[in-house]
């Protein structure tokens, strides 16, 4: 009797092991690597809110084959090394079926790992052009920085002398490089500072002394951007007649609090605006029921929603197997607010996205084109 009991229990154990080794275990788990601490923590927190809102809609509509989809968050700190650690934990311990990375540095760091373990990673916010071709398992619903860089260069090319100040991170350096390659000798000064730096006054003095007609402010969005702007605002007389140009760092209204004199008239190049009633309803629902979203308002709210929606859609059409989901994504039309009907094909970025140009007028960001 005991012999048969042991045999039966052993069979159950083997079947249990076997079923988890066979790809797809009937539960769709999506890992999210986002900066939950550090200078970019606001983005991580807003990502949690947007994905929570999307998840609520998805699970209310059946989730993954009738079961709830699960999200597991890990802190990538917008750093490659921390993202790799988070990736390994999500894959090896949590057993996720797909991953949503946030920062470009996180996506680029895990790109080789996604290929080696065949783990699908779909970002909504990673925009470094190096993502293109980095891995057949890494995609992004963001536009490439090359798109922003081209539009930025177009705006800056109207001026004879351009100065740039950039923070040292993948996003800012990617934009800086694109602008420098396009403008060539028009760039008279290009300052960079480390993310841990807090005193920019000598760099600001160098910008003011450069004789530039336009200054491209290129910090990473967050406290460093605010700090840089505050220190520049201490003596704006140095910058009379200079046109300031920037990216997303100064687009949200709360990022311009206390520095309105500097930002008035500033040209900002960033993601496009989608004018859709349903999209607006969704965005408002996120803010009302899940918490404030300001830094990721607009395009990125919808892109994050699209990333998760398409992952679940791919799983529902195939299975919770990463390889099958990846094959579906590259060959089938996408769904969602921004990507409806388009397809990744052999690209890693969703095609057809162009940048928008805003101008700060009377404290408001008014779209120009």
């Amino acid at each position: 009797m005991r012999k048969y009991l042991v045999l039966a229990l052993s069979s159950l154990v083997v079947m249990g092991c076997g079923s988890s080794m066979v790809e797809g275990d009937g539960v769709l788990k999506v890992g999210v690597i986002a900066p939950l601490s550090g200078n970019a923590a606001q983005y991580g927190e807003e990502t949690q809110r947007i994905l929570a809102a999307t998840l609520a809609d998805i699970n209310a509509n059946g989730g993954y084959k009738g079961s709830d989809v699960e999200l597991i968050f890990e802190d990538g700190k917008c750093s490659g090394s921390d993202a790799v650690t988070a990736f390994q934990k999500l894959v090896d311990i949590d057993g996720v079926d797909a991953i949503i990375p946030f920062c470009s540095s996180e996506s680029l760091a895990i790109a080789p790992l996604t290929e080696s373990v065949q783990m699908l990673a779909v970002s909504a916010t990673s925009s470094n052009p190096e993502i293109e071709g980095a891995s057949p398992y890494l995609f992004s619903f963001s536009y490439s920085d090359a798109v922003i860089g081209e539009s930025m260069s177009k705006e800056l090319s109207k001026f004879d002398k351009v100065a740039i100040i950039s923070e040292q991170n993948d996003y800012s350096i990617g934009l800086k490089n694109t602008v420098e390659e396009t403008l060539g000798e028009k760039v008279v000064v290009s300052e960079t500072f480390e993310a841990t730096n807090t005193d920019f006054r000598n760099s600001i003095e160098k910008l003011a002394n450069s004789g530039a007609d336009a200054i491209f402010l290129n910090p990473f969005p967050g406290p460093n951007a605010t700090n840089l702007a505050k220190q520049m605002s201490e003596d704006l007389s140095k910058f009379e007649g200079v046109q300031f140009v920037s990216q997303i760092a100064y687009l949200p209204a709360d990022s311009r609090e206390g520095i309105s004199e500097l930002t008035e008239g500033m040209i900002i190049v960033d993601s496009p605006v989608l004018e859709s009633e349903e999209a607006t309803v969704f965005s408002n629902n996120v803010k009302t029921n899940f918490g404030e979203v300001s830094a990721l308002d607009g395009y990125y709210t919808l892109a994050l929603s699209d990333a998760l929606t398409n992952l679940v859609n791919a799983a529902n059409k195939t299975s919770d197997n990463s390889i099958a989901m990846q094959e579906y994504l590259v060959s089938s039309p996408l769904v969602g607010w921004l990507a409806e009907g388009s397809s990744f094909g052999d690209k890693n970025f969703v095609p057809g996205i162009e940048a928008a140009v805003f101008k700060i007028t009377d404290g408001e960001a008014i779209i120009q084109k």
Partner: protein
Amino acid sequence: MSFFIQILANSLVTGTQVLLFAVSLYLIRAVSKTEHVALGAIATFIAYMFYVMFLSTGSFIVSSLFALFWAIVFGYTSFALLEKFYKNNDVLLGLLASLSFGIFLESLIGIIFETDAKSIIDGVLPVIDFGLFKLTTPGVITIGFGILLTLIVSFVVLKTPYGRVLRSINENNALVSSLGVNSAFVRSFVYCLGCILTGFVGVMIGLNSALTPYMGFQLVITGFIALFVGGVNDIRGVVVATFLLSLIPEFLINYSPSSLEFSASHKMFFVFIIAFILVMYRPNGLFSKSIRKS
């Protein structure tokens, strides 16, 4: 010309911050033979305590007293931590203990306050116009108090009996103790003074720009280098070395041709190059006299 003067003024602010670190390291080394590298993290912690109290009360005086309290706490903590290494003449272990304590403090700050930059003062700082250059109020206070404190400390160390006692403790502790000097009390006092000086720097950095958990690290490293480049037993050398290591890199960065693309992120590269050159030509300190071999 105004560009030069403004760069000089801005660099004097950061140079004075490093100076107070270097002087503190000098004083502590003078009485305990230990390089207390945890001063960077201690200064940061004190600054965060000022920030917490200022957020609660909005009062500079209350916040300053709270920061002073923490400086004294850390002074006695440092003394308790490092005294036994001094007594056992374990200089290297003392350095390691200090480094470990500093890393622990920085990590604690990162956990409690998170790693994003925090500003004590909201909004744009007012600047004082000196004609050829402009400085913020915290910047002016940093230079003014920093140089005054350094002059006072230098005077006491070089010209007063107290300074002689301080320098004697390092050379012959037993003899000094036999003369009735409580060397343990002197060491604990110096540790507290070092924490107060560096805590002042931390608070000024928080007021002048922003607080981050690791802001003290670069300052204490530069101060540490200045201590050895200037001469560990010569406060004049330490002062001069500090300004050489703080000012020259700034001018190299800001006056370099744009084709070289030197910027603020290359500062420590220049600090180490200059330190190397100075050590090669003056290995015993900037004002060392060559010792005739008998």
